[in-house]
């Protein structure tokens, strides 16, 4: 670990925090229907879309109707993306002449992008046409992120409203999040990436002759427009197989900074939106404090582990930290920071190969994903709110405090829904991992022996079911078995979380807000931050410690004993 590296990490996180209030204020105005700078330009388009779609923007929905609209929209997105992949060879904008995607892979990818997970079993540059990348992947990057923001807005309204029967209008939230927030930010961000060298064209791949005389095909395409929403929407699906480690996706140190800021910007700002809408920004800062503490602790462990390196490699006379799988232009510090930031806010983009992290370095991203998403654009908001509700409830049991949060009594309904939301994705991760490691079809994809191979499988299902999408690599996952089981894990992870969350939103909105009583637990101080972190770690630890012990933990001790896998 170097001072230079620590300063880089500090600068990135400080810049991310500096964006929270301005962006939070803007998004709040957008999502509450106030006029903004863009209203004059975007307003007519917004109203035109409502007219075409027959949406009454003034009419709000009960949480079940809100959820029904969300499910319908997602089903349509799934079917369209599936069809697009299955017939892409017959469609235009396919200069590389790629063929149609197989049914199981198309299913996996359609589910993945529709659910905002963005797990990729394919290599973008060799499997997808430009039309599929633009009309399929990029569009789903926008709308799946907007769906997440809509879900977050619903639960925020649940806390903010009193005795209300509705939680907003899904179609309005979806439209406003896309038109006023994501699109404008992405136009600016994509231009910045193009300025730094990220391609944005529809050209055929360039065939070049290298200095050694070999022929090399250089893939390109409409990359910048997909890159920026990949991060802003906490999606993570890359244009190229190497994702943000690819020199076209992430050419310079400045684009790396932009990638990191894009991941953090809207997702952190959404917690400021929460604070503003419940009447006190400090509530948002407290939840952001939880996320920042976990990120800083995670970065400290990963950076330390990677800087310490692999003692077996060092015994061969190779000095320095673990640079395997890392880009030299990013180095240890920014690779470690990226690995943690991408797995805490549920993004899944990578600028370093997580399979090559040291066992403890790899444990942190894995454990980050095993907690419900903390800090993503949508799921991250309700992920941290679930744990805040659980913390209030557990504190009530432990010290006799009245279980209430922001003037809402936390009753059996909310606690049952919280437990369902935590158990659903966790059960999917563990059950599918267990199936994969005892069946020939599952074991056929594992390319490393022992605990490292187990980690690859556990990582894949964790990433799929908990809305992340990053890959540990080393797992041959583009097979019917993994495409379908990971697809099911992604569906379970997304909807077994979001449905109970919206049930909580509806329940809380209907409840009358009461002034905080003397017996209520204070929820704006350091004590509450510590309590939420404690509950998060205990729940995550109890659920996944046995599995982690079989993977990265035992691999770490084996490494110290001189054995690698």
């Amino acid at each position, binding site marked *: 670990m170097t001072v230079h590296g620590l300063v880089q990490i500090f600068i990135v996180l400080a810049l991310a925090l500096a964006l929270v209030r301005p962006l939070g204020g803007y998004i709040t105005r957008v999502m509450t229907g106030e006029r903004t700078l863009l209203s004059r330009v975007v307003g007519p388009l917004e109203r035109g879309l409502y007219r075409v779609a027959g949406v009454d923007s003034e009419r709000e929905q009960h949480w*079940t109707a809100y*959820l*029904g609209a969300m*499910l319908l929209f*997602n*089903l349509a997105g*799934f*079917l369209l993306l*599936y*069809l697009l992949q*299955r*017939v*892409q*060879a*017959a*469609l*235009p*904008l*396919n*200069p590389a*002449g*790629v*063929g*149609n*995607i*197989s*049914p*199981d*892979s*198309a*299913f996996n990818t*359609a*589910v993945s992008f529709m659910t905002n997970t963005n797990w990729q079993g*394919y290599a973008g540059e*060799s*499997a997808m046409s430009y039309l599929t990348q633009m009309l399929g992947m990029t569009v789903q990057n926008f709308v799946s992120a907007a769906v997440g923001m809509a879900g977050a807005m619903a639960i925020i309204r649940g806390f903010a409203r009193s005795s209300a029967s509705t939680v907003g209008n899904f179609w309005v939230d979806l439209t406003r999040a896309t038109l006023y927030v994501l699109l404008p930010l992405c136009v600016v961000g994509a231009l910045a990436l193009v300025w730094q060298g990220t391609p944005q*064209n*529809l*050209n*055929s791949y360039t065939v070049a002759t290298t200095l050694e005389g070999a022929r090399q095909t250089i893939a390109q395409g409409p990359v910048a427009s997909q890159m920026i929403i990949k991060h802003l929407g906490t999606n993570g699906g890359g244009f190229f197989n190497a994702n943000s480690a690819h020199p076209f996706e992430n050419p310079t140190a400045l684009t790396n900074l932009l990638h990191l800021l894009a991941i953090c910007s809207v997702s952190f700002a959404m917690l400021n939106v929460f604070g503003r809408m419940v009447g006190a920004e400090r509530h948002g800062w407290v939840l952001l404090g939880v996320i920042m503490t976990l990120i800083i602790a995670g970065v400290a462990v990963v950076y330390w582990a990677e800087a310490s390196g692999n003692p077996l490699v060092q015994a061969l006379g190779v000095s320095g930290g673990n640079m395997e799988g890392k880009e030299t232009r990013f180095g240890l510090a920014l690779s470690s920071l990226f690995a943690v930031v991408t797995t805490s806010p549920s993004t899944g983009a990578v600028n370093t190969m997580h399979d090559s992290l040291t066992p403890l370095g790899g444990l942190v991203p894995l454990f980050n994903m095993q907690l419900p998403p903390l800090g993503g654009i949508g799921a991250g908001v309700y992920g941290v709110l679930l744990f805040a509700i659980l913390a209030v409830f557990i504190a009530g049991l432990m010290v006799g405090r009245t279980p209430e949060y922001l003037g809402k009594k936390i009753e059996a*309904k909310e606690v*049952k*829904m919280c437990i*369902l939301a935590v158990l659903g994705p966790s059960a999917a991760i563990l059950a599918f991992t267990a199936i994969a490691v005892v069946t020939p079809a599952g074991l056929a994809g594992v390319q490393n022996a022992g605990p490292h191979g187990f980690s690859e499988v556990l990582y894949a299902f964790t990433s799929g079911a908990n809305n992340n999408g990053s890959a540990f690599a080393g797992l041959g996952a*583009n097979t*019917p078995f993994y495409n*379908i089981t990971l*697809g*099911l894990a992604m*569906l379970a992870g997304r*909807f*077994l979380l979001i*449905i*109970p969350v919206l*049930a909580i939103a509806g329940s809380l909105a209907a409840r009358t807000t009461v002034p905080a009583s003397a017996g209520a637990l204070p929820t704006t101080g350091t004590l509450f931050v510590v309590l939420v972190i404690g509950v998060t770690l205990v729940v995550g630890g109890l659920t996944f410690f046995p599995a982690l012990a079989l993977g990265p933990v035992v691999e770490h001790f084996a490494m110290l004993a001189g054995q690698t896998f």
Partner: protein
Amino acid sequence: MRRTQEVWHAPSAGFRQGASGDGGLKNITGINVMDIAVLAIGVGFFLLMLGYVRVCEKL
């Protein structure tokens, strides 16, 4: 601009089948069991989730 137009027309030179491709719906003359199976899984899951909404409403 000229190059872009060429790219637009490039596919007309003939479609290749990719490494993971099976010809897709274009080449299907009968029922593709795998297509139906995965679509049934997807649509079935959404129907199941409608039931799950009712469960969460009742709890």
